[in-house]
């Protein structure tokens, strides 16, 4: 039997020690009504060879983005992953360890997470970070819950330009509780409408959450919102792309209280959207309301530097129904992967990655502006993706797809007033040739 090491002899001897006659007798105290009367109706086990064949053939049925000229982004991005990353993160000592509850035999994991926390603080400018949450969506939800605990207020205000998947997650997370959520619209240039926020935010508002670059790609003027939020004693939560923070101003310098988001861009593959990881960073004063694991630096008995999980009095295994969150397992391996990715890329690598993405996206924007029927009405303050519009977008997308181009995401499903809006993205992996090919094909289709 695969993966089971007890031989028939072992079993015999162990049953004898346990004082039980047969393996089935280990279950004789179970009520007979609940015992399965026959074998499960699933196939018998396959050889490793057969499993490999079968699963590999499923993988082969997928058409990866590498078989297209793809401009898809919208929350998950195709960045180059240095070859050194995989062998390091696949090391069994990381891969097959559990949560580092036992500090003395988990120092390497703990130091790596401490480094991860430091990296998130360096990128965001915030004081503290946790050891990761599940993904961008659930990290936003956890941050909103955190703001509700801190302010003891009951209203949440959201920019409608937060990633729609994240918004949906937030609504679900809050659906069992009695809080009010209000969304504010966006203006003609693709920015969150500040006037709308002003009319909605009040003394009951716990937080205002926005995303920058927002879902349409536009970089928000964050301070214009955080100042307003602060006036009402509410917190500002920002959903950020950590890679963009290699160029963009630190959220901490823009009046933001809590930063969160998805870390896939830091060395993660697309993998149909998971696993990535969620990050959270905040100010010192809110540390004890932050959900999730936290690693701290301390010493051992001989005063040597050591690390351990800390501030666990916030967590479910101690505080139970009064915990800051129910989170237990997180996405540690992905967080450590991010720390290794950032270490490999280094300052220069990260800046280049962001700079090239920015330039290529703006080059694409420029080239699209040459195409007569393309409408570019939003602000040019974008990082690596932006919205363009064209009549009958759906059929244009389909025609491009037939020519092996995935030009982006039609955002009409999320924003009805942008039914012909296409969100296109360039990361540093795009080449001029690919962008030119997209434009020439588009022109050809529109002829």
């Amino acid at each position, binding site marked *: *039997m695969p993966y089971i090491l*007890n031989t028939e002899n072992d079993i015999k*001897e162990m049953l004898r*020690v*346990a004082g039980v006659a047969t*393996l089935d007798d280990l*279950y004789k*105290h*179970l009520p007979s009504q609940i015992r399965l009367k026959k074998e*499960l*109706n*699933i196939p018998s*086990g396959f050889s490793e060879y057969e*499993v490999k064949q079968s699963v590999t053939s499923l993988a082969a049925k997928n*058409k*990866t*983005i590498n078989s297209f000229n793809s401009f*898809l982004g919208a929350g*998950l991005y195709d960045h180059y992953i*240095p070859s*050194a990353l995989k062998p390091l993160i696949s*090391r*069994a*000592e990381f*891969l097959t360890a559990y949560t580092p509850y036992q500090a003395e*035999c988990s*120092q*390497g*994991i703990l130091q*790596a997470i401490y480094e991860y926390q430091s990296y998130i603080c360096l990128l965001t400018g915030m004081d*503290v970070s946790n050891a990761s949450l599940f993904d*961008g*969506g659930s990290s936003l939800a956890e941050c909103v819950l955190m703001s509700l605990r801190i302010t003891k207020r009951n209203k949440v205000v959201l920019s409608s330009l937060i990633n729609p998947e994240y918004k949906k*997650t937030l609504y*679900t997370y809050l659906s069992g*509780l009695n809080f009010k959520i209000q969304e504010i619209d966006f203006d003609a240039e693709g920015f969150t409408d500040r006037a709308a926020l002003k009319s909605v935010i009040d003394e009951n508002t716990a937080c205002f959450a926005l995303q920058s670059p927002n879902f349409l790609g536009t970089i928000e003027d964050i301070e214009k919102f955080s100042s307003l939020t602060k006036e009402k004693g509410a917190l500002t939560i920002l959903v950020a792309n950590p890679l963009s923070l290699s*160029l963009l101003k630190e959220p901490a310098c823009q009046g933001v209280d809590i930063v969160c988001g998805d870390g896939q861009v830091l060395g993660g593959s697309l993998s*149909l*959207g*998971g*696993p990535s990881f969620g990050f959270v960073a905040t100010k010192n004063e809110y540390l004890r309301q932050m959900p999730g694991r936290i690693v701290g630096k301390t010493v051992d008995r001989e005063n*040597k530097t*050591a690390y*351990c999980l*800390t501030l666990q009095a916030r967590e479910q*295994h101690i505080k139970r129904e009064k915990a800051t*969150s129910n989170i237990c*397992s997180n996405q540690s*391996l*992905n967080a450590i992967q991010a720390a290794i990715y*950032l*270490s490999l890329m280094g*300052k220069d*690598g*990260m800046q280049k990655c962001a700079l090239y993405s920015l*330039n290529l996206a*703006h080059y694409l924007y420029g080239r699209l502006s040459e195409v007569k029927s393309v409408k570019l009405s939003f602000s040019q*303050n974008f990082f690596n993706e932006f919205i363009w519009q064209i009549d009958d977008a759906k059929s244009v997308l389909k025609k491009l*797809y037939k020519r092996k181009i995935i030009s982006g995401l039609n955002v009409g499903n999320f924003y009805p007033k942008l039914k012909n809006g296409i969100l296109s993205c360039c990361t540093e992996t795009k080449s*001029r040739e690919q962008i030119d090919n997209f434009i020439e094909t588009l022109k050809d289709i529109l002829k």
Partner: protein
Amino acid sequence: MDDRLIFEKSDSGIKASYVKKPEIGLKEPKEILPANCLRSGLELPSLGELEVVRHYTNLSKRNFSLDTNFYPLGSCTMKYNPKINEELASLEGFLNIHPYQNEECLQGALELIYNLETLLCEITGMKRFSFQASSGAQGELTGMLMVKKYHKVMKNKKRKVIIPDSAHGTNPATSSMCGYETKVIESDKDGLIDLDKLNKAVDAETAAIMLTNPNTLGLFEENILEVAEIIHKNGGLLYYDGANFNPLLGVTTPRLMGFDAIHLNLHKTFSTPHGCGGPGAGAVGVVDKLLEFLPVPLIDKKKDDFYFNYKIKHSIGKVRAFYGNFSVLVRAYAYLLRLGREGLVRVAQNATLNANYIKERLKNDYNVASNKPSMHEVVFSCTKQKEKGASALDIAKRLIDYGVHPPTMYFPLIVKEALMVEPTETESRKTLDYFIDSMLKINKEIDENKEILHNAPSAAYVKRVDEVKAARNPDLRWVREK
């Protein structure tokens, strides 16, 4: 040994060259974007690849892991993580697919999820599964939000959730996140649900009970059918925390036990690696009456084509972006194919046998928390040792010197000086014997020289860590020295 952080090894002269310079005229950020949205400096280290490789390789060596050490961490099911699963999860066809590609491009992935769902439905008796949740706790949240919405749609006035005092901490924490009041019921002297106390606690306002079976003492709740009857009679639902499902594979199902909603920890029962604490996957299954409440989307099939089905009448929505930890699902699927129907029963039986073997061999030296038959794990109560001057913590730390990862300590909360041992089915009798011998030796050491235990571990990378200092003066990140 070099204890420096990666930041302290930085050399500003080193530049990485992983990405390609585009063949277009490059502009500076400030020529493209307004100055007020750009940062002035970026404090990230600069290192050569070899330095990074050496740094993290060395860090990896300062840990115990399943591949290097016996890891009998109770409630965590640290079974072997087969290597074939890693290889398959890394196939290009699974790594480089974007969730917003056309369904036509994703057929292999969708088929895999669909097949995995079919297998898990048969194994648990549930009608359907959602794979969105990234962990057991998130699975609980998903399941309990469905329970909440179900009662809302049915116009049932419910506000309480019943949870035994032996439950995982995630259960009460989840109940609170759903806006329920948690009603804790005390276990009986054997560590099982006390039916009298349950009867008294349940009323028309009871929304659900959250249960682990076998429970956290490693005991099967023999009165599970009576429990189900009491809860159902009062219009409540049964939620199954599947963290301990391993010993029941192919033996019984949550459906037969009377559960309405469940989660399975694919990173426990179905062999996917724990990765220092994640990613995992919480597969959430439900019976008929909760189908309309599942998260969107489900994977359905029309003729030969698989598609994302968003038409779920009372769906609770989403608990994360996209469709869950897909590459974890690939591993669990490969595992299930490999084991098959006979294999799963053998898993359950051997997991149970291994735990019982340890229990029988140690029960004269260490008190067992309950006299009831054990399933996949056994909880020892080190009260005799405590009286002699060595706590469960000391014993746990001493095990590190023997090269064994400590069992779960001080849990469940209802057992004094608890050590919870879950060997899993993938360990050999030789390994179990080594563990047993180590535990016996440690017990002797308490009589001979308990200082060894107080000073343990002595052979680890660091000596005992000062966790109090860590909490009192939080140092949670690196800061450049001025």
